[in-house]
């Protein structure tokens, strides 16, 4: 999709800049995703049986990554989030970030978004 790393990263950085910020009241210690070198906060809300996510990070590239995830996962039914596969990450050239040993914590982020979905799914059942 992108010619080289520079374009890909510039795209992520720009996405990061555009990411709608999380409401400050949700930037709490308990909303921080562990396993990232930078801080990532995620907040989830259920409306009309669909989850919306908001998020923020103190690092812009991390913010770009989380923006892509939120774009994919937000406004979806919890079950669809639980069942979603992560092939799209390959498709957009983020695969190198997918290893669990990467400091950016992409894997932790996906796990956390799915955890929210599981929690809301149990509420719905």
């Amino acid at each position: 999709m992108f010619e080289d790393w520079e374009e890909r990263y510039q795209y992520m950085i720009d996405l990061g800049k555009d990411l709608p910020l999380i409401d400050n009241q949700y930037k709490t210690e308990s909303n921080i995703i562990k396993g990232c070198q930078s801080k990532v906060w995620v907040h989830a809300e259920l409306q009309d049986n669909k989850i919306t996510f908001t998020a923020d990070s103190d690092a812009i590239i991390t913010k770009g990554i989380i923006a892509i995830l939120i774009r994919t996962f937000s406004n979806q039914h919890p079950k669809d989030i639980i069942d979603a596969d992560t092939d799209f990450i390959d498709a957009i050239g983020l695969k190198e970030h997918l290893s669990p040993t990467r400091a950016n914590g992409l894997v932790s982020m996906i796990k956390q978004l799915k955890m929210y979905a599981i929690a809301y799914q149990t509420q719905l059942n």
Partner: protein
Amino acid sequence: MPQSGLDLLAMFNINEIRKDFPILSRKVNGKPLVYFDNAATSQTPQQVIDVIVDYYSNYNANIHRGVHTLSQEATDLYEQARQKIQAHFNAKHSHEIILTSGTTDSINLIANGFSSLLKKGDDVIVSALEHHSNIVPWQMLCERTGASLKVIPMNLEGELIMSEYDKLISKNTKLVFVNHVSNALGTINPIEYIIKKAHAVGAAVLIDGAQSTPHIKPDVQDLDVDFYVASAHKLCGPTGVGMLYGKQDWLNKLPPYQGGGEMIAEVTFEKTTYADLPHKFEAGTPNICGGIAFGAAIDYMNAVGFNNIALYENELLEYATKALLDIEGLKIYGTSKQKTSVISFNLDDIHPYDVGTILDKLGIAVRTGHHCAQPIMDFYKIPGTVRASISFYNTKEEIDALVTGIKKAKMMLS
């Protein structure tokens, strides 16, 4: 005849030295590797790699217990390595050198040993510049014994404040723990003063040499230090091996750390008598190959020469500091005049992780984050820094590449 700096530098041929390190010719993300994460782990010269291959090809056997030739040869090599380490640090006896799995292991050995020597009312003093994983053993020790942990504070330059140390030290002080060089900022601490003051009140001193030993050759007798610890992997040796120097009297006084083979003289179900030094502290089969390679690494560093290393690294440090400070918005943390070739910095309010990620794409390896020194980051109220740590096998051209990389990162990120 004493040699001037220039004579020494003339003998120091950087192109020849770089040829010793095979990894320096590899590519990362399609670019030539520029390795500036030396404070985390240094690279390994062919001379040390050869020793590792030779060991497994020709000598591999368990040591100190076999009658057969291989075991004896391996034991000889291992003990020769201990003697090389002894000579390097100028310890009085080779049995004052305990081979461990690294600095962390050495520190835990001492902290554990002091459990039986400390009581409520005693003080342990550490510094604000410590590697935070190394503060934990002392916190645990103080919890176990009821002793209190006191901290020598630092100033904005990243130097320990000696007038505050003077106030902390008292007849209650039993142990002082300070790193010789700070891993996060590169500050060289005034350990001679710290040791003298501690000894005046009868306290023991443990110096963490993990970051000093790649740059400085310490003389433990001259320093009169009680314990000095280091890791092989920071000075061109392999990972998983390190050393503890302890004065003979202290090592005899401390109880063994771990139970197991090698550390016992006699075992009955009623009582075990411990082996003599150094084996009392070396339970189980050690990292034999690692120990031998540690000796080879020390040989290598000495062949390059610590004077040469200091002169050349200082030149690179000055060059890099000047070039980095020319970048608008770049701020260096740790500005002591006494420092090793480590530059910790931030770029405007850009997160260090972002800078490190872009540099990696350009083949440049730096460390980002809090460098296991959270208290220092809290002091400066920053989430972390980008740390470029320079070694004697780096070049000015690599520093130029770093500067170009930082400028690119700044352009992309702001």
